[in-house]
């Protein structure tokens, strides 16, 4: 490993930006805030590029020890940063996409009162995300992990005066806690069994252990617990419920945190822990199953959503499911590949959706959109590219990564593959449904309607010279917002070629060389190029089918979907209401918790035991004091008498002890 003293600058720069904006932003001009936020974030990106330029697939990892942190006996944790090929990919994605979204935010959030706050939070998020990515041990990673959770909470609840936003923030935080609980226990197990949290140490120790093929051992336990953490952070079944609600936050937040970077932290963590999972096939299988189910499940919910951001949110959950599927079948590099391309096109989708929302005055309901391609051609084009990318139409980015995943999944089991293909079909359907509903047909929004429904993104939108009385007709967004869209669109187009000829896999090979041995063998068996091309053809045609269906239903026969929905009845309602999962959780967990807290903990334990004991002890103290009060006569000599008597007792005790 090579020490690299510049490594720590990458996370610290956004932190400095956050600190400056956080402390001084209230009194600074917006230009200054913008400059600070962009400069520090951009510097981090630039630094990441510089580091990447000197880094190849054969490079030894960089590390930098910033400070000693914990020393407890033989156990020690240092504040260390670490950069290998895997971290580098994440680093570039986070800083690059993050920087673009920062630029976009300037246009999007310009008129918000909390502009400085927003920028400070965004920078803070960048700091924690980079800490997470660059951590050299699980504890530093955990700091980043919790920190991005904090930033996410702050940004979801950014418009905290709105009840739904505050509630969504809390929901995200609490659901994430459940996952973190698993993560923490996994860390404790590691400390207990390996005596260290350092990646290198742990993985070396793991590799000396046998593979836990039969039964459940310590590695399986650690792997499953890590997966619990990852499921929380990356919104997998059963902990995905927070992510759709998180769309209450500003759209750049949804793009950056809840699509491109933070939610992929779970994937990153699983990939990082590949050595552990490699020795725990059971845990791996669980990862694969959860990923697959989540992919399908979330995709079906996405069909019936009408909120543009909700559709994208479920799409994100679904795509994350793909990544976990990849990790679960041992194709870690494919998962990371998809993570990267997903960051490009999903970030782009959200930004474009934000542009749409921005352009029509805060409306998010797709039923009130339509025909927008005329008003906002750039948004339409870029979003179209992203849609093609996510549905896996060649040669766009999504095709390469998704195809890789499906192929590798097929190598593990055809069931994964089948579900993956079905999911791809559904994905294609709901994405093109979104496109047609938003951009196709005629504009259905209330152009001159005065009482506008300020939904989630109730940001100020008088930045384009409109008066207060309405939004007027839809319009294209300013170039500060379109610029990032275009760049991301380009990336969505060409990003996939990175993986051409397994180059991406080879690049990441040093990281996963210790892992994935089993899976790679399986992949080799399926490594017949005929089958590969066949599978490719199937998935592409499935995507085309989805497009066709969407075209038919939402462009040709716009009345049909309603009739289908009516005929499906209960099933449609179930899908539209997200299978009542939230309600189920409410009944299963939330309500019993509240009831139990109220009746048992509050009335019985708190009031009956704790309060009562406090009150009783106070009462007893008063009784005793009342009787002892007469001792405090105010007479100096009486006090002295007590002191003398006490001294005599002390002397007597000491003498007795000495004599005895």
């Amino acid at each position, binding site marked *: 490993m090579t020490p690299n003293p510049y490594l720590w600058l990458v996370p610290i720069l956004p932190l400095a930006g956050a600190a400056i904006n956080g402390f001084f932003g209230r009194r600074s001009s917006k230009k200054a805030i913008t400059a600070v936020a962009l400069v520090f974030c951009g510097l981090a990106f630039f630094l990441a590029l510089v580091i990447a330029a000197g880094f190849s697939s054969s490079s030894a990892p960089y590390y930098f020890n910033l400070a000693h942190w914990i020393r407890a006996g033989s156990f020690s944790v240092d504040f260390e940063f670490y950069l290998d090929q895997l971290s580098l990919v994440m680093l570039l994605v986070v800083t690059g996409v993050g920087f673009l979204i920062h630029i976009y935010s300037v246009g999007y959030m310009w008129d918000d009162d909390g502009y400085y706050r927003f920028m400070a939070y965004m920078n803070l998020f960048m700091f924690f995300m980079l800490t997470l990515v660059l951590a050299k041990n699980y504890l530093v990673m955990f700091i980043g992990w919790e920190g991005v959770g904090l930033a996410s909470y702050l940004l979801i609840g950014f418009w905290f005066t709105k009840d739904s936003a505050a509630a969504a923030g809390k929901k995200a935080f609490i659901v994430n806690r459940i996952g973190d609980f698993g993560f923490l226990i996994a860390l404790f197990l590691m400390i207990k069994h390996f005596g260290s949290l350092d990646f290198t140490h742990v993985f070396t120790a793991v590799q000396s252990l046998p593979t836990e093929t039969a039964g459940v051992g310590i590695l399986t336990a650690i792997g499953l617990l890590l997966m619990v953490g990852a499921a929380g952070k990356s919104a997998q079944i059963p902990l995905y419920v927070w992510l759709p609600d998180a769309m209450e936050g500003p759209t750049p937040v949804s793009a950056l945190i809840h699509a491109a970077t933070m939610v992929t932290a779970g994937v990153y963590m699983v990939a990082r822990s590949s050595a552990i999972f490699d020795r725990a096939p059971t845990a791996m299988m669980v990862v694969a199953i959860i990923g697959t189910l989540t992919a399908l499940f979330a995709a079906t919910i996405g069909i019936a959503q009408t909120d543009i951001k909700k559709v994208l949110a479920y799409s994100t959950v679904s795509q994350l499911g793909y990544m976990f599927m990849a990790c679960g079948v041992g194709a870690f590099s494919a998962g990371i590949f998809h993570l990267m391309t997903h960051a490009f096109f999903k970030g782009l989708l959200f930004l474009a959706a934000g542009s749409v929302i921005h352009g029509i005055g805060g409306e998010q309901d797709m039923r009130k959109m339509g025909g927008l391609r005329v008003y906002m051609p750039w948004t339409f084009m870029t979003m179209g590219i992203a849609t093609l990318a996510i549905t896996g139409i060649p040669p766009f980015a999504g095709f390469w990564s998704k195809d890789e995943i499906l192929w590798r999944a097929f190598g593990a089991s055809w069931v994964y593959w089948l579900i993956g293909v079905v999911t791809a079909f559904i994905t294609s359907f709901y994405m093109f449904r979104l496109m047609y509903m938003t951009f196709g047909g005629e504009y259905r929004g209330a152009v001159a309607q005065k009482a506008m429904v300020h939904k989630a993104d109730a940001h100020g939108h008088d930045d384009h010279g409109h008066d207060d009385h309405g939004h007027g007709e839809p319009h294209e967004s300013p170039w500060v917002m379109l610029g990032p869209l275009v760049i991301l669109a380009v990336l969505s187009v060409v990003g996939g070629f990175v993986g051409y000829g397994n180059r991406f896999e080879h690049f990441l090979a040093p990281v996963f060389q210790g892992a994935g041995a089993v899976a790679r063998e399986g992949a080799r068996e399926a490594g017949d190029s005929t089958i590969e091309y066949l599978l490719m053809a199937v998935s592409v045609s499935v995507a085309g089918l989805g497009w066709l269906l969407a075209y038919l239903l939402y462009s040709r026969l716009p009345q049909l979907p309603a009739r289908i929905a009516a005929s499906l009845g209960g099933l449609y309602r179930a899908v539209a209401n997200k299978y009542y999962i939230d309600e189920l959780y409410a009944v299963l967990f939330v309500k019993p918790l509240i009831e139990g807290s109220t009746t048992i903990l509050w009335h019985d334990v708190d009031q009956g035991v704790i309060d009562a004991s406090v009150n009783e002890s106070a009462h007893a103290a008063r009784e005793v004091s009342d009787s002892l009060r007469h001792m405090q*006569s105010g*007479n*100096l*000599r009486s006090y002295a008498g007590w002191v*003398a008597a006490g001294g005599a007792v002390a002397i007597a005790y000491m003498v007795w002890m000495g004599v005895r």
Partner: protein
Amino acid sequence: MEIPLSCYLVLSGILFVCGVLGFLIKRNIITIFMSIELMLNGVNLSFVAFAAQWHALSGQVFVFFVMVVAAAEAAVGLAIIIAVYRTRETLNVDRVNLLKL
């Protein structure tokens, strides 16, 4: 003929006990204050005796410090007594048992 250390210590103890008794039975606040000085003197004697016993001059230095503190204490204490006398017009501690005037 040499004196056992215990004789010095007993003498010091007698002085100390006399001081405590004075604190307990005297009513005049100045006399009570003098009883405190008597206690300090008793302790000083044991310091010097121990210093001689253990051949450590630190004991005598401690006595020096005790004296310094006693002097400071006497200055402040007597000033307080004067202030008390000015407001209560009595030196009897039994009559100075209320916080308010």
